């Protein structure tokens, strides 16, 4: 007689797969937003499992800011080839040229906000009615209040006051033409859940998640990788350190953490010991204001 007991990771996985299948069942042209970061890598793994032995029934979409870590891009191309999923890449650079957008200035000028324009254009170009994203509710307090099926208007805007009630495991993905639903299957996972799952499933990650030597600028409490995308000032302190990335975003706005963690086990014990949150430690762009994420989401960010 088998034991009818599931581990919490099994429960989270079952919920996420249920959500993936709701997307495939409710929408005509969904897409999975893939960045090469650990959360979207987890999404791909869940999507693979959800539709086995079939292929993932939607494309992977990467909104390329041009400020990516080369390791993440290499990984992206490889995983797309391995899964047999269609990969669509649209570049923020092209949107800037085509629309005459103003590049943000400053030391760590980030194209993070401009990403929203390219994303909305891509949604329009392919007529995507649902975009699956790897956001988690533990990341940030605006995320903590967002639904799993998050309806956006034709400008991609999130209105926290107009969210649809989401009861039981019933998801309402019904939308008008031009609207779009952002779907977050790993909403209920926390950072450590993702790492424990990656460990359990033996998922391969881009190398920058593990310790490596890198030249970084010491910027307040953050270590920012030297790259062609940031402005180096005379008084900058540049040092070589053993670092790894706890999150993978743009080179301009993702900080490295000093670490000697060379395996998933090392990373898990490091996160268990740390007393700083994921975003607090690694995201330079959220420091601007306490409502930074809330504002970006209202403007179409995922």
């Amino acid at each position, binding site marked *: 007689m088998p034991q*009818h007991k599931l581990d919490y990771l099994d429960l989270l996985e079952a919920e996420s797969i249920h959500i993936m299948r709701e997307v495939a069942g409710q929408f005509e042209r969904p897409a999975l937003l893939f960045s090469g970061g650990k959360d979207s890598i987890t999404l791909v793994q869940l999507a693979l499992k959800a539709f086995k032995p079939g292929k993932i029934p939607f494309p992977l979409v990467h909104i390329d800011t041009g400020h990516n870590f080369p390791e993440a891009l290499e990984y992206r191309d490889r995983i797309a080839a391995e899964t047999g999923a269609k990969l669509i890449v649209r570049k923020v650079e092209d949107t800037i040229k085509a629309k005459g957008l103003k590049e943000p200035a400053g030391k760590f000028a980030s194209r993070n906000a401009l990403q929203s324009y390219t994303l909305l254009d891509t949604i329009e170009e392919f007529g995507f009615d649902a975009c699956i994203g790897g956001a988690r509710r533990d990341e940030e307090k605006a995320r903590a209040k967002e639904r799993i099926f998050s309806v956006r208007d034709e400008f991609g805007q999130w209105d926290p006051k107009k969210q649809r009630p989401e009861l*039981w495991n019933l998801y309402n993905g019904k939308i008008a033409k031009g609207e779009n639903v952002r779907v977050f299957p790993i909403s209920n996972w926390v950072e450590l859940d993702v790492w424990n799952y990656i460990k359990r499933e033996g998922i391969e990650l881009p190398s920058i998640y593990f310790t490596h030597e890198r030249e970084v600028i010491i910027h307040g409490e953050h270590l920012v990788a030297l790259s062609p995308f940031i402005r180096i000032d005379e008084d900058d302190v540049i040092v070589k350190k053993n670092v790894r990335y706890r999150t993978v975003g743009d080179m301009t706005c993702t900080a490295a953490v000093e670490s000697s963690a060379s395996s998933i086990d090392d990373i898990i014990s490091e996160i268990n010991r740390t007393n700083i949150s994921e975003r607090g430690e690694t995201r330079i762009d959220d420091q601007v204001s306490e409502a930074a994420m809330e504002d970006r989401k209202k403007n179409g960010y995922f």
Partner: protein
Amino acid sequence: MDLLRFITAGSVDDGKSTLIGRLLYDTDSIKVDQLETIQRQSKNKQEGEIDLALFTDGLRAEREQGITIDVAYKYFSTDKRKFIIADAPGHIQYTRNMVTGASNSDLIIILIDARQGVVEQTRRHSIIASLLQIPHVVVTINKMDMVDYSEAAYNSIVDEYSRMAQTLNMKDIRFIPVSALNGDNIVNSSPNTPWYTGQTLLDLLETIDVVRDLDFSESRFPVQYVIRPQSDDLHDYRGYAGKVLSGSYKKGDKIIVLPDHIESEIEAVEVHGIEVEEAFAPQSAVLRLKDDIDINRGDVIVTGSSAPIVSQEIEATLCWMDNKPLTAGGKYLLQVQSRRVRCIVKQINFKLDVNTLEKQEGIEKASLNDVVHVTIKTASPIVYDTYTSLRANGGAILIDETANTTVAGLMLS
């Protein structure tokens, strides 16, 4: 490790946010940078003292208005369990949010101010908990420090609550005397309440039995998606993807596909592409059948002796969640699991006062936050169980056909 989802009901005045803050703080779930943000905001506090309530505040829109507009989800874990907290505001106008948060909860924490005892809000939260059939109710009698940790005060509130609860359909009720502010009986047993020998709140949350719908006489599997790879090696493969809502499915099981009542047999059960002996609730799985029959999204594969209800005429208790009121004769979409059908709300039978349980008849419309009993006619049959017999297959939502919004949560009967 297991997973427990719970909801906290109460207002800021009851110390609800402080209680959540305390649980997170005492289990080391608040990180230094998050604490610093809170400290910055705790301007009016004395040096070194932090306002734990601020940890649950969310959006700027809410901070500016000093209210909570929505359900926020919080996470923490101990060595024994992972916890998901649905933090729902408790004010009267937010019945809709509490219903939303309660729908997925295994347990509800109802906060009572020890100085106030059972008040209208306590009744409302308890009635909603019983309507939503939350399996466990934990009544935390808070602010015990304000009543000198008096056993008599505690006992009198326990009696008062127990009397009220007799009129409600609640299966498991526990009581704990706490002070969220001082941390009494939250994570650690309090020396201030030597007369209380029961569990602390965290201990209870860590050990309480989580109800999973494993009733094998009621196996339910709504089909979400049909997997047909149509590749050379899987030319004839046809798998039905869905989630086991209750019970289990094994190779060789005789099944019935509803609502069309087609009989067949399970050829294989797969979980994530691997053939397994059995899939059980709440796993996501794929079923393959012996016969080549036409099954679509929205169909339900069932086994066992006790079949669900297949009907076009339904009664339900619903919580209305839209600004535009519900009127008898209104047409909507009804969604039960993966099945969505057109329907008409034929009649509003009565309104339930969520403060008193009184039934008010002769109602013509239901407004935002109203709980009403309705009769619904659907355009085609739906497959469901009564909410009280099988929660996992007895909940439904109404969708406005033109605005597309979710306008009601329904407990089918």
